[in-house]
């Protein structure tokens, strides 16, 4: 054993964010989804025959033009994976801006790394597009609108499997 610890090592973001917003005077805590039933689909083919796609919670780059930047709203999107994106918008998201940065897209949306697995034949192919879902306070909007739209795009692109990356 490396160490003895009187606490669990990984951070509980449910506890941490509840205490933080309570300290800001928000007395009604956010309620996180919890399910007992978990849907499960086994991979139907060997990986080497599968087309794999990526989903991110980050947004498309904010327009440089100040007027357009004011109008910028997070939306669900599908974008070509080639050429790979060199930056994505993360300023409005919940992540540790002091400890790290998001200047390397592959650290949160590994388009280039996935393409390398496709080139080597480890997977059949990478999706020609990647997909973006805004993190939304509204769970019904995520379930009723974003889920079905992402599914539709995945089917259009013939995907067998999807990697979803939460920033």
């Amino acid at each position, binding site marked *: 054993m490396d160490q003895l610890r009187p606490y669990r090592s990984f951070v509980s973001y449910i506890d941490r964010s509840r205490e933080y917003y309570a300290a800001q*005077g928000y007395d009604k805590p956010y309620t996180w*989804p919890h399910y*007992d039933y978990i849907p499960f689909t086994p991979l139907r083919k060997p990986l080497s025959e599968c087309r794999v796609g990526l989903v991110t919670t980050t947004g498309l780059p904010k327009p440089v033009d100040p007027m357009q930047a004011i109008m910028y709203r997070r939306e669900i999107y599908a974008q070509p994976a080639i050429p790979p994106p060199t930056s994505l918008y993360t300023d409005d998201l919940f*992540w540790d801006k002091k400890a790290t940065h998001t200047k390397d897209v592959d650290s949160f949306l*590994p388009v280039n*790394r996935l393409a390398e697995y496709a080139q080597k034949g480890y997977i059949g192919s990478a999706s020609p597009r990647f997909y973006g879902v805004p993190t939304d306070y509204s*769970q019904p909007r995520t379930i009723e609108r974003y889920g079905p739209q992402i599914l539709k795009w995945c089917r259009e692109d013939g995907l067998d*499997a999807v*990697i979803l990356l939460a*920033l």
Partner: protein
Amino acid sequence: MSLVARHLEENGLATVIMGCARDIVEECGVARFVFTDFPLGNPSGKPWDAGMQYATVGIALDLLERAWMPRTTIQTPYQWHNDEWREAFMKVDATNREALAREGEKRREIQAKVKKS
């Protein structure tokens, strides 16, 4: 993100989530999860470390193929170069409690004004 993954699984697509917020994903419950114990922001490996990113994606791909039941979590073997972020992120203590209360108050005032207009 977990809710979208669940929707895809329900409709016949195999999924794996990569993330750093273990409790949020596991509380929701998903088919497959690759957890990296890093500060939030780099779920597929450290910035500019292509080797770590490649290996992390490989773990996710292998989990897609090998998981035989839902709620399968794999933790990657990587550690952040320090542990300071664990305590520092969204910290609430005597040093910032008043400032946080003021921030919240200010935000509610702005929100109330926006609602009125």
